[in-house]
Structure formats: C-alpha cells, structure tokens
C-alpha cells in the first residue's frame, strides 16, 4: 500500500507541461494501476462467489429434483448406530412413479405424494402434517464446503459430494448417479470420522413398469396440513437462526405448540415447542440421558437422525435432525423459551420477595 500511495502521489504531482515522465515514474504508475485492477477484479469475484452456486451445490439441486422426475425401483441398505453404539441394519424397498415415492419394509409403508407424507403400520394409515412451504432456503454450499470426486456404485458412474466442516472433517458424503442424478448413497459422518448413519442402493431399476408394479394402494386417510403462523404465540421462542446458523424456514402451530423448521441448506432441524412440564415417565424406552445447556435431556438415535427431548423454563422442546450429532448439539444450544407476559408480570410482583 505504501508503494501504491507513493506512486499515486508522484503521478499526481507530475508536471502538467507535457514533459515526459521518467521511466521510474512510469513503472510506478503502471504498477499502481495493475494493483488497482487486481483489487477491483478480486472484489468483483468475491462479491459474486456467494451468489453463484458451486458445482457441488448445483449437483445437489439436480439430485433433489431427480427423485420426483425419474421413475425407478430399488433396494436400499440402511445402517445406523444405536444409542449403545451397536450398528443396526435394515433393508427397504423404494419405488418412485410419477412423483409418488414409496418406501416399504416389513409391512411398514411410507408414501410421499405432492409433499404429503403418509405412514402405514400395524395400526393402519396415518398422515404427517405437511409443513408450510419453506421460505428463503439457503443454498447447500451456504455453510458447507463442498468438494467433488468421481466414484462408482454397483457399476454405475457417480460423483461423490463431500460436505466438510470448518475444520476440514467430512460431515456428509452424497453419491449421486451421473446418468440420472439420483442419490445412490448417503453417509452422515461424526466429527471423529465414524459413520453415524448411512444408506446405499444395492439394486436400482429404471424400468417404469417395474417401479409402478411395486406401488401400494392409495392411503385411506385424509391429508393434514400444519397451520402456518406468522406471529409466534406468547411464551414461545422462534429465533431466526439456530445455534449452528441454520435458517428458520417454516413456523406452524402443531400439537398444542409450535413447530419450527430450520435448514442450513444441507441438513434440517425440526423443533417442537410445547408449554408445560415434561412427563419423563411417559417418554419411550431406549433413550440416553444427556444434557442440553445444563438442562436434563433425553436423546434417541434413529435411522433418520437423532431426537432430543428436554424442558426449560416451562417449555418442552422436542428436536429432531438428520445432521451429525455435533451439528445437532450446536443447533439446539441456546434454544429457550421467552417468559410469557403473565409470567413477566408475576416475576415483577414477586421479584422483591425473592420468589422469582
């Protein structure tokens, strides 16, 4: 910078009579101009880096569209680690026809149609409330560094997209079919490098007739839609960003409380807030005792991700995420309820008596 300033000063103080500049002055002027141009180009490049999706982000976007645009049928091997660290395993069949995706295993069926999800188990069909359309969804590379490398799955040419943490460790590996852009394999990776959960197609058939033959009947239950809300009710808390920086994309009234959905562009986090006192005895077995910000909590390891339940300040939080455990922990840190207006009044009244 010092040389640039000096050069600029010399150019400005050059005689106006038209006398030729010395060679030293010319070199300095050209150097200053070059530095200025590099700075301008660099600034322009940085400014556009955030708005132009990387190759990895583009590939992930194509992958997300492919599942509803491609008819296929396949068998998927699903693995995950239980709370005790034991490796669990299951095999599921997947069929996709005309945008209807069906997953089945041992009589259990999960069916998704136009964003509405139905589940059939031994009790019959039920529907999952459809969350409001996500808004302002960040790009897959908004918070993750994505790198690509070629690979193969079951003799199919594919590309692996590795999403890395800031420290360079892999958080997720996606293997995407080069021909169809279908997701063939996914690994969610802990910070220590172990795979927390994964699935992988062990067979894939792109024949539409075969795919259609595998579809079950239409669900015999009405669909449900969670009611989107703009204003968070008194006593609840809906920060615009989670502790890990994921963006709030959906807010709905649900199950006597509110349901929030966050995403960082790659993973998502669901937060159910319900006012009241957590009935610990009513929680299902199989959980692991843990803490969230010092509060007692219980964690469940599932094939889809982890679920953590805890209570703070009169609100019960039930959070689920498909992210690695360290990312989930960072996301839910700091989640707490705002005291309601009534509680604030009582605190004001009782405060002087020391009962607040």
């Amino acid at each position, binding site marked *: 910078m010092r040389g640039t300033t000096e050069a600029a000063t010399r150019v400005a103080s050059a005689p106006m009579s038209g006398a030729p500049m010395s060679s030293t002055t010319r070199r300095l002027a050209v150097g200053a101009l070059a530095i200025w141009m590099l700075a301008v180009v660099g600034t322009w490049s940085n400014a556009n880096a955030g708005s132009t999706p990387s190759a990895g982000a583009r590939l992930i976007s194509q*992958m*997300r569209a492919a*599942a509803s645009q491609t008819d296929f049928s396949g068998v*998927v091997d*699903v693995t995950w680690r239980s709370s005790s660290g034991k490796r*669990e395993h299951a095999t*599921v069949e*997947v069929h996709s026809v005309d945008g209807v*995706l069906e*997953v089945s*295993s041992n009589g*259990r069926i*999960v069916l*998704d149609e136009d964003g509405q*999800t139905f*589940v059939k188990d031994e009790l019959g069909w039920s529907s999952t*409330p*459809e*969350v409001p359309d*996500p808004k302002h*969804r960040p790009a897959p590379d908004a918070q993750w560094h994505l790198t690509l490398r070629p690979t193969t799955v079951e003799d199919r040419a594919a590309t692996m997209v590795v999403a890395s943490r800031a420290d360079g460790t892999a958080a997720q590996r996606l293997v995407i079919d080069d021909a169809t852009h279908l*997701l063939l394999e*996914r690994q969610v990776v802990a910070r220590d490098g172990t795979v927390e959960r994964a699935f992988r197609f062990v067979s894939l058939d792109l024949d539409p007739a075969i795919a259609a033959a595998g579809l079950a009947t239409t669900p015999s239950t009405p669909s449900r839609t969670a009611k989107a809300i703009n204003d968070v009710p008194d006593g609840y808390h809906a920060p615009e960003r989670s502790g890990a920086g994921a963006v709030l*994309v*959906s807010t709905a009234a649900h*199950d006597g409380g509110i349901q929030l*959905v966050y*995403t960082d562009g790659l993973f*998502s986090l*669901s937060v159910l807030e319900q*006012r*009241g*006192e*957590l*009935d610990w005895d*009513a929680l*299902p077995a*199989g*959980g692991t005792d843990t803490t969230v910000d010092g509060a007692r909590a219980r964690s*469940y390891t*599932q*094939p*889809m*991700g982890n*679920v953590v339940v805890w*209570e703070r300040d*009169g609100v*019960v939080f*039930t959070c*689920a*995420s*498909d992210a690695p455990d360290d990312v989930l922990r960072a996301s839910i840190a700091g989640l707490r309820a705002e005291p309601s207006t*009534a*509680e604030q*009044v*009582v605190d004001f*009244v*009782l405060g002087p*008596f020391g*009962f607040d």
Partner: protein
Amino acid sequence: MTDGPDVIGTPPPTGPAGSDDDLTLVSGYLDNELSDDERAFVEARLADSQEWRDELDAVRVARDAVRALGTREAPAGFWTGVTTAVEAQPAIAVPEPEQTVEAEPNVVPISAATGNRGRRRAVAWIAGAAAVAASLVAMFMIPGRSQVRPNVAAVATSHGATSAKVGDPISGLVPLGPDREPR
C-alpha cells in the same frame, strides 16, 4: 394522639384517626392485645369519633378478608424450585455472641417497648397483605402447567417428511422405512 396511656385520664379532643400509632391501637384492639388503659382509650375514641369507627371497620374488613383466603396447593415443582434456590444461596455465618450485655437500670427491655411493638404489627399486616396480593396474582395469572408427553416417534417421522420437502425426498424418506422408531 401519640402516647395513648398518658392521656387516658384526660381524653383530648376527638381527632382524626390515621397515624401509625392510631392504626396500631386499632389493630391491637381487634386482636385483643391492648392493656386495660389502652383499651379504654380506644373505646373512648370510638365512642366519640366516626373516623375512628370507620378506621376500625376498615381494618376489620381487611383482616377478615385475608383470614378467609384459606390455603391452596402450590403448583407442581414450586417447592422444589424454592428449596433449590435456597440451597443455592451461600451459607450465612452467624457469629457467636462474644459477651452478654448486662442490663442497666436505664435500659428498657425491647419487649416492653409497646409503641414499637404496635408499629411492627402494622407493618406486618401491610407486608402480609402485599404478599397475599402477590400470591393471588401468581395463582390466577400463571397458566396451570400441564404435563407434556411428546410423541417422539411422530416427531421423528414428521422430521423425515420435512427433510424430504426441505432437502431431498430419498434422504428424508428412506430412513423412515425401518420400523425402529421409539414407541
């Protein structure tokens, strides 16, 4: 009217009630805690002054209202919170008395200071009423805390469906296939 017993023999002109000492006497009168002289003094005032009678009625109504409130169960977890808060307070060291002060002839025992006793009683009534009012606010304004039994399996399934919508369908739905959800 500040030194009641000293003026018993010669009742002063009827004056308005309302000073701290008047309230103390009225309160003590209702609680039957006055000496014979004090009682006679108060009754003389009540006989002569409408304001004193009004004051007596007002104190009686307030006292009866407080006593009629009865008791109510504290909300679940309240006492746990109180004891936790108390236990969290640093212990207060109580110094041992180094010496005993011998009573002197001119020192009046505190128990004999009836004027202060009455003032403390009035303050106690006011503080008690304020505490009751605060408790009423707490009981009626804080919504009752209901027991929450979150459906962990439903939240897990719902999240898979949400992931399918926010992210990609295969990642969100395939892991929902295995029937391994908590019940």
